[in-house]
């Protein structure tokens, strides 16, 4: 494709709204990229697949495809998504079914496989160290059995799928920005060692991967001035062959794209902005120049990059106990003192009941539940206060029994507290620990493949 490629960021997580996708499609985009996987989404999907072998992908995929397929069938738009989760093959089957249900044919659906390390984990652990990336802990200290293990693949297999004529590309775990870099590299024929171009495409992907967050969502300071926030759009990037990009939004939508909204997203979930590590490039986000052109258009130029590392980031997860949570609310007078006393009485009752709790967390809502030590001390009494108490137990049954100890405190504790159970309707929830690590690309790449099915 010569000239400008228009890409829309149509999803920021599993559970985002597909409604804003229509605005992107109506505005005209060459690619719709749907980012569905937060760090722990694979754990949720793994549980789904354990119950049903045909699951393991994000189940809102048919909703997104239902919106996008008419444009795909008309040849206007292609779709790229990591909605495949832990089971991209099943997601592709769901995509085929969705197309058939809509009476759509003549499209190619590609599946990218090879991110799932679970079937080969023993071999990999025998070859490389898998130390915890943040703590440096040895893999021999991994707690229990891994629930999933997946490498963050890069843009190349997606670009390969597009080169093979795919209209829809479904992946498992890939680096979020790679979903967006892939069509840019494919269309503009960027070489895989053209580091500045790859960095520019990665930065664009990073700006688009969290849907509304570039277009006025989660904006600090003058957030209330964002136009029509109930119609917050998803962002669009117009990207030229040299890597120059304009970040914008659909015409006539609410929201805002400005220097301020774009810089808010630039550093979101970033560590060293001068060395943003992706599978495809090491991007220097501090080298970019952002020009606010007005009319909800921000131009990005001058992005520099360096060679990618020879490793992929991978993520493993493990079981980490069971949690429960209860809340009890008090009004003035002495609301915070009553809440504190009740939390303590609760802990004592649990102890007397002989229930094992490995960790407690007590928060006083209305006082310092969110700010903790950053909240300055005050003599002023809060008008009301909620004690939220959470606990971790070795098993689900104990976590559930602990919750029951809160209920009688309505009658048997400081005056006039009322309880309401939170978190999963009072049912215990499973906690998960994550284990980020690095795996040599040479151990992963030979297993990466692209499958194409025509509907």
């Amino acid at each position, binding site marked *: 494709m010569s000239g400008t490629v228009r890409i829309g960021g149509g999803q920021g997580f599993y559970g985002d709204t597909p409604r804003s996708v229509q605005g992107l499609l109506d505005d005209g985009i060459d690619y719709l990229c749907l980012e569905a996987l937060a*760090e*722990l989404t694979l*754990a949720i999907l793994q549980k789904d697949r354990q119950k049903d072998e045909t699951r393991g992908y994000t189940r809102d995929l048919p909703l997104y495809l239902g919106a996008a397929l008419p444009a795909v069938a008309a040849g206007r738009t292609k779709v790229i998504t990591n909605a495949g989760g832990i089971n991209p093959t099943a997601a592709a089957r769901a995509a085929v079914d969705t197309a058939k249900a809509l009476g759509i044919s003549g499209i190619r659906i590609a599946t990218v496989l090879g991110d799932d390390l679970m079937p080969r984990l023993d071999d990999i652990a025998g070859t490389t160290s898998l130390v915890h990336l*943040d703590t440096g802990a040895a893999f021999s200290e991994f707690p229990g059995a891994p629930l999933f293990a997946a490498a963050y693949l890069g843009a190349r297999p997606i670009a390969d799928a597009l080169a093979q004529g795919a209209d829809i590309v479904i992946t498992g775990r890939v680096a979020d920005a790679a979903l967006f870099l892939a069509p840019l590299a494919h269309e503009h024929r960027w070489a895989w060692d053209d580091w500045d171009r790859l960095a520019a495409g990665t930065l664009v992907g990073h700006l688009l991967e969290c849907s509304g967050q570039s277009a006025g969502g*989660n*904006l*600090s*300071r*003058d*957030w*209330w*001035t964002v136009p029509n926030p109930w119609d917050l759009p998803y962002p669009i990037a117009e990207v030229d062959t040299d890597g120059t990009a304009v970040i914008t939004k659909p015409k006539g939508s609410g929201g805002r794209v400005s*220097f*301020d909204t774009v*810089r*808010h*997203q*630039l*550093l*979101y*979930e*970033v*560590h*060293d*902005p*001068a060395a943003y590590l992706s599978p495809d490039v090491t991007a220097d*986000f*501090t*080298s*970019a*120049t*952002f020009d606010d052109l007005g009319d909800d258009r921000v131009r990005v130029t001058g992005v520099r990059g360096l060679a990618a590392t020879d490793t992929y980031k991978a993520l493993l*997860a493990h079981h*980490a106990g069971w*949690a429960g*949570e209860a809340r009890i609310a008090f009004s003035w007078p002495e609301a915070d003192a009553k809440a504190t006393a009740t939390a303590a009485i609760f802990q004592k009752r649990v102890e007397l009941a002989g229930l094992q709790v490995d*960790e*407690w*967390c007590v*928060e006083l*809502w209305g006082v310092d*539940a*969110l*700010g*903790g*030590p*950053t*909240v*300055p001390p005050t003599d002023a009494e809060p008008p009301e206060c909620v004690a*939220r108490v*959470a*606990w*971790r137990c070795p098993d689900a049954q104990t976590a559930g029994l602990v919750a029951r100890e809160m209920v009688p405190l309505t009658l048997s504790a400081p005056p006039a507290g009322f309880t309401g159970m939170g978190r999963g309707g009072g049912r215990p929830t499973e*906690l*998960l*620990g*994550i284990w*980020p690590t690095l795996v040599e690309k040479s151990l992963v790449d030979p297993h990466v493949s692209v499958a194409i099915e025509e509907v």
Partner: protein
Amino acid sequence: MTARIRLHEICGYRAGDKGDISNVALFAEDAAVYDVICAEVTADRVKAHFGSMVTGTVIRYEAANVLALNFVMDGALGGGGPRSLRADSLGKTLGGALVRMEIDVPDELSARRAPRPDVRWAEEILDGAE
């Protein structure tokens, strides 16, 4: 001469999470403010500000192209999102917690104030729904 004001008066913020690490970006209103926060808001001060909420190290990165500082705080999420017992297990509110910090600014910046929220449009919607 200097005066003491809250970061909130002169900076924006956004927090993100990866595992048990929270990163909080601090956005200066303009270049003059950026120079001040570079001098005043050190990693050590941020570590002290968060106290027991952040158990690990704090590293500061600069992004002068967007007039921002980025604080990467290890051990900031009670063990990491899916493992944390905190209600705000992803640390979404830690940006607001950071801009509570007070710093010394030159007199010419001391009168700066954050814009005040005007949500009459929201009140009209809610009144209309009654």
